[in-house]
């Protein structure tokens, strides 16, 4: 007997993203090949602007709201827990600032539906479009993750990823901030989850948002702590 088609939940953490969120939500597909349904879940992480209102106004979007800002990692976890409650079989996480393209969704989801991997990582091109600090930081963290956990990746810090609900149970992270992407990889390596990297397009709207050099140092400190078993 064939397995029923999975519900795909797209988890979008958003903090003060009223500028980019409506465009992102309107670009999301209402159906994906091999999926029974597609449900976007916006996690408004303590925004002070109209993020939650705009997300609620979008058709078919579920909205959960953190009363205070907890950070990207916490927002992704809340969104993933919401996805499980809604019965999702596949969870996609993508940034709320519109840097990821909805057009890449099928490439991330299809390998999971076909059972080719448990986790799919979107890999950003290391082109000149990527801010120099991000390129450098990503290189350092890629090296650290390879050296400490033995995973060779083209982009260890990308935020556009997809995983099965069963994989999420093993990935469940504690990081509240930008260390979440790295913690996912640590759990992925330790739990022996199968993964694929797929190239994605990225548009950098605001170079001063997202991971900053200090966040990079914070992530590096976390990586060392995780290696030491904490």
């Amino acid at each position: 007997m064939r397995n029923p088609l999975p519900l795909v939940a797209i988890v979008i953490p958003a903090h003060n993203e009223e500028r980019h969120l409506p465009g992102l939500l309107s670009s999301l597909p209402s159906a994906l090949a091999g999926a029974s349904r597609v449900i976007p879940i916006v996690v408004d992480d303590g925004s002070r602007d109209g993020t939650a209102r705009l997300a609620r106004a979008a058709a078919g979007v579920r909205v959960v709201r953190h009363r205070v800002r907890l950070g990207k990692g916490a927002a992704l976890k809340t969104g993933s827990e919401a996805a499980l409650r809604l019965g999702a079989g596949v969870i996609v996480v993508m940034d709320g600032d519109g840097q990821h393209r909805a057009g890449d969704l099928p490439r991330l989801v299809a390998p999971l539906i076909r059972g080719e991997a448990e986790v799919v990582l979107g890999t950003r091109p290391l082109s000149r479009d990527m801010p120099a600090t991000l390129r450098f930081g990503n290189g350092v963290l890629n090296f650290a993750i390879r050296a400490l956990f033995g995973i060779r990746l083209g982009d260890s810090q990308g935020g556009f990823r997809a995983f099965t609900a069963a994989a999420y149970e093993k990935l469940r992270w504690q990081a509240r901030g930008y260390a979440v992407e790295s913690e996912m990889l640590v759990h992925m390596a330790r739990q022996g989850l199968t993964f694929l990297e797929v190239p994605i397009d990225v548009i950098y709207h605001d170079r001063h948002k997202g991971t900053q050099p200090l966040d990079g140092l914070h992530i590096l400190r976390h990586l060392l702590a995780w290696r030491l078993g904490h």
Partner: protein
Amino acid sequence: MPAIQLLAAIFAAAMMYQAFINYRRGEVGGLGLLTWEVVWGGLVVAALFPGLFQRFAAVAHVARLLDLVTIVGLLFLGSAVYYLHLFARRLEKMVVELVRAEALRDLDTDPG
């Protein structure tokens, strides 16, 4: 009496009063009040009559009472920082759990 001794005694006495105010506001309990009054009261006495504590300095094998106070102060500060760190972590965890529970409760009530 050197001015610094007097200043230290006045500061410690002011902190004794502050601890009492915090007790009256219900911010510390009876045991907390007693602990802080003993700590600050001890410092008032040590500031005004350092000779009384000189014997403790000798027992601890430090030359001066000031050195002993500094060492004890650093130990106290270190343990206070550690306690506050743990407390902040616990508090942070509780806030995260509460905020997440509230957010997911909204999901249950939101028909979508």
